[in-house]
């Protein structure tokens, strides 16, 4: 991100040709290649998160569906549309820049910023809702949605299936002590609809739970709400990190737009020199693309379980 801002700046500080370049063409080519290489590394940056998502969703689809069913698909969809519109206006900004149309440029940039801000506003609304429902996976950052949920629990350690009665009793008593809930007072008391739905399906014969789920939701053969909640908590962790990083990129983008607005308003860009607009455009569109994937992955998948 930093390098991007940098990228734009150096046209601004000394408009026209940089000392190290032979001609404008070389300079623009360099800048655009540089921008694309930067986007490549951005893709790999988010790629790590998508890998984590892939691994855990493939292992615990039900818990993920449970979590995503609690997200509000309406807000998510609205945000998607908002971003798409902002992408359009961004593209038009470039379009007018190429025509050297200063006024339309300024207007389009303003529109883009407005939509970007709207997006962030909606995100705030969503995060607040998660906070109020006690779904922030960070210890101590949650409003206590229901006092019934104890922060301090009695929890027996896992008893190895092979252990003899004595050993079991000991390792039980040895471990069974009150401790601060490592689930970080993350509260999931919104039922387990998807799970029940799956159990229904299982009754009809065909196996529905993945192998990981068969061990991941149960302890000693019985359904263990703690473990189920852990998996949902992982979903929310991934949700917050992904959308959070995306929102961070949006904020950087807005800063970029503000600077772009200033320069465009001063009328520095012309049909011959509009590289900064184009580069900022690339960045903005990239952020849009990330969201295009985040929306179905986080909000939609698994919705059909309940409808």
């Amino acid at each position: 991100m930093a390098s991007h801002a940098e990228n734009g700046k150096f046209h601004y500080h000394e408009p026209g040709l940089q000392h190290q370049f032979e001609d404008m063409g070389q300079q623009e080519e360099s800048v655009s290649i540089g921008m694309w290489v930067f986007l490549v590394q951005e893709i790999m940056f988010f790629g790590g998160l998508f890998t984590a998502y892939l691994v855990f969703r493939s292992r615990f689809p039900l818990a993920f569906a449970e979590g995503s069913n609690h997200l509000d698909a309406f807000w998510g969809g609205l945000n998607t549309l908002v971003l798409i519109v902002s992408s359009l206006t961004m593209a038009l900004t470039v379009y007018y820049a190429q025509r050297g149309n200063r006024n339309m440029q300024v207007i389009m940039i303003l529109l883009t910023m407005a939509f970007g801000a709207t997006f962030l506003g909606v995100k705030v609304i969503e995060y607040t809702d998660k906070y109020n429902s006690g779904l922030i996976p960070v210890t101590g950052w949650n409003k206590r949605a229901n006092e019934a949920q104890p922060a301090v629990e009695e929890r027996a350690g896992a008893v190895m299936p092979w252990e003899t009665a004595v050993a079991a009793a000991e390792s039980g008593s040895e471990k069974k002590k009150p401790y601060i809930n490592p689930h970080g007072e993350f509260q999931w008391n919104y039922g387990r609809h998807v799970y029940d739905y799956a159990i229904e399906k299982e009754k009809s014969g065909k196996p529905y739970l993945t192998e990981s789920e068969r061990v991941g939701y149960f302890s000693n053969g019985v359904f263990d709400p703690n473990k189920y909640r852990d998996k949902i908590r992982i979903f929310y962790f991934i949700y917050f990190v992904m959308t959070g990083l995306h929102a961070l990129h949006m904020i950087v983008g807005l800063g970029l737009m503000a600077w772009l607005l200033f320069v465009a308003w001063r009328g520095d860009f012309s049909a011959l020199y509009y590289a900064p607009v184009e580069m900022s455009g690339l960045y903005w569109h990239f952020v849009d693309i990330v969201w295009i994937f985040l929306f179905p992955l986080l909000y939609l998948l698994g919705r059909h379980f309940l409808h």
Partner: protein
Amino acid sequence: MQTQDGIIAEQSGIPKQNYLTNGTTLKSWLLTKDHKRIAIMYLITVSLFFMAGGIYASAIRLELLTPPSDLLESGTYNKVFTQHGILMIFFFLIPSIPAVLGNFLLPIMIGAKDLALPRINLLSLYIYWIGGALTVWALLQGGVDTGWTFYTPYSTTFSNTYVMAVGLGIFINGFSSILTGLNFIVTVHTMRAPGMTWFRLPLFVWAQYATSLVMILGTPVIAITILLLAIERFAQVGIFDPSIGGDPILFQHLFWFYSHPAVYIMILPGMGVISELISNFSRKKIFGYEFIAFSSIAIAVFGFLVWGHHMFVSGQSIYAGLVFSFLTMVVAVPSAIKMFNWTATMYKGSILFETPMLYAIGFLGLFLIGGLTGLFLGSMGLVVHLTDTYFVVAHFHYVMVGGQVIAYLGGIHYWWPKMTGRMYSEFWGKISAMLVFIGFNLTFFPQFILGYLGMPRRYASYPEEMQVLNIFSTAGASVLGVGLIMPVVYLTQSLIAGKPAGDNPWMFPGLEWRTSSPPPTENFEVTPVVTWEAYEFSDENGLDIDEARRRQAVTTV
């Protein structure tokens, strides 16, 4: 002698106008956009980190002199080897050759005035400084004891040291190498001088290009991984912590997805330097130019497919192990090709034994052993016995120190006259090269045996019967230490008392030797037009050999 000195002085003195004399204020350095000055600042910082890591290394060897953990108690020892690893890998090995030699030479070698994005180049230096400062601060606060691999769940849940601060430092530092790589890629694509086609590029540039690809594609992943680690550590979320549903193996996958290619980030530039040295000091076109060039790219690409060979016993599936082992064997081939080509290059050459060439020959031997022991660790049946033992330690020190550091020293000596315009003491140069070679082998060869005996890594205390070999190792380390300190002395001394080197002391054809040394701020008075192939020693490379001979004759009377 006076007169002759006079003659040399007027024929090849230090030019009045060069990048060093162009602005002397501190500001002119800190805000420079000149890739050469940035390279010099990198050189200084990187050397400091190297010394810091070296001090930790000597502490480790001293502790291992005796079986019990008596000199350092195990807690301290854990911190010491962790910080040795972190400083050396993230703050010395990865930036050293690209950021110092690459920064300085890449634009000159392709005949450009500067890197394509000079501000970003400066930015990367500052990012490196910030990341480094943060890490050093954390180390001073009390350090970190997770091992440089930060394996979970120890690093997330159990370690009560400064994991997050150090992690943040590495995270920031990562962007420095990303930006450097980005800059190199752009530069190589757009800034080549007229006539400098892709297949006229020096192999050093090819190697830097391959390295940059790895930096761009790999580094972001470690960044996000460390970020997840830090978040998990303070939020206790547990996507890496099995006790709350996570999976520690996932961390290892993400970590090694970068950290294995990172090994190639460290060694590829070294290979580039060696290609330069061998070819030039044999005064002969390199053997199989295309093959060396493409093997660099091949290594960069295949390097991304083999990370699982760090995880053979870590609980990854047998099938995955087989796949990774197979690809590991495949990736051995390009390195072998390079090795053979270098050897063949010396055939029918006219070999000049200056210090850099000694380093190059040392590299051939050490990297050969390093690479072959790599096969040991790629073959699954053997690696089950060898992982996490000193065999691994010895192997990667042979590749990293015997490969990268030796190449780095060779490169520094080779281009020192170009960087500073002055010649270091050839005599002391050769002595230190020898010492480094001998000391290194004495230090790390016994560790192969130790490893096969089963001495595990990261042990503060070990069984008595292994002491003899450890004593060898420590003894060698002291020799190695001396060998590594000497260059600091005589290179610094050469800055003041070294005799002017002249623009092209060895009459080499590369572009960097066709400008004055030290070069002017924009590298060339006139943009060069390249009409000769890489390593063109025949007469059509436009070098006046006879003039050089005459000058030599005068000076050596």
